[in-house]
């Protein structure tokens, strides 16, 4: 037997519109605005070392600090406050140099930013130990920022080959 439905019944949605909107809101709240989960960035602060490059090419005796920031998503830039701290006679800690630098990522390596131009000149005294520290944030391509910080570990003596004035 053929059933007759009125047109208004056929056009009526089986799932209420309000319910659908609720589902979409719930999905937005759970998964955010389509971004991946929390991005992860790390900072690798190498031990301060005597730079043979600077000695060879710039004829200076310097202790260099290299820092690399690495994220699991592409970054725009990394902005860091870099410092080399010096320990004198196992007692007094002084900041030998402090700089605020920004490095934009290279398109070939969009997840990385490398700081390779931070150094201090060697001092006359030779019994100094040094430590590198870095603190700041990474600005990601998707607009988010991630705080980062790191250090090179224990204070270690850095022998300078030739001592300058």
């Amino acid at each position: 037997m053929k059933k007759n439905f009125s047109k208004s019944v056929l056009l009526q949605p089986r799932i209420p519109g309000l319910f659908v909107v609720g589902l979409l809101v719930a999905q937005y709240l759970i998964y955010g605005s389509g971004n991946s989960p929390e991005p992860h960035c790390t900072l690798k602060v190498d031990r301060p070392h005597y730079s043979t490059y600077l000695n060879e090419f710039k004829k200076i005796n310097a202790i260099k600090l290299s820092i690399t920031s690495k994220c699991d998503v592409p970054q725009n830039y990394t902005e860091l406050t870099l410092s080399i701290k010096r320990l004198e006679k196992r007692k007094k800690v002084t900041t030998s140099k402090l700089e605020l630098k920004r490095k934009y990522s290279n398109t070939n390596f969009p997840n990385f930013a490398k700081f390779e131009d931070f150094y201090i000149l060697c001092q006359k005294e030779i019994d100094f130990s040094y430590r590198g520290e870095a603190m700041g944030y990474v600005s990601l391509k998707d607009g988010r920022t991630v705080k980062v910080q790191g250090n090179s570990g224990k204070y270690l003596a850095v022998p300078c080959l030739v001592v300058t004035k």
Partner: protein
Amino acid sequence: MSYLEECLTLGDWLSQDDRRALYKYFLESNDEIYESQVKSLVTYGKLTKTIANGEISYFVNNGKVNYSARKVDSDEYTCEIRAIKLSNLKSLNYKRLKKFFAQSEVDAIHNFPLPGANPQSDSGYGITVYPYYDLRYYSNNRSRLLGFFKKLKVDDSEILNKLRAS
């Protein structure tokens, strides 16, 4: 080779002191050139110039001037590196933009040097967060007042004299 020519090839190996002295040197020696470049930028809303192995492009946008750069012969521009606000006072804008030009040129020399003996890392475009005309550069992001006093202690005369003798 003059000291200025040497600086154009050093790139990564340009020290902070060298760069700051270069900035001061450009400001004093390029005043007339910058004057005409500011006129051109304000008139046309954009300006492109080359220095060392870099090309700098300036754009006027929403009351600001910003710059991006690229290596000469490269298709790939950086994103906007620095920006400076324009004011309603023409004379103030001229003064500010001259400093902005000098700063951007030093940035470009540091990142895109002429070929030389020194190996370059090509590890991305690097800058000091605060330009040399901002007192916070001298105070490392602390107060401008502290920056003012620290600036008084900075002596770049030795490098400046080497540059002037170039």
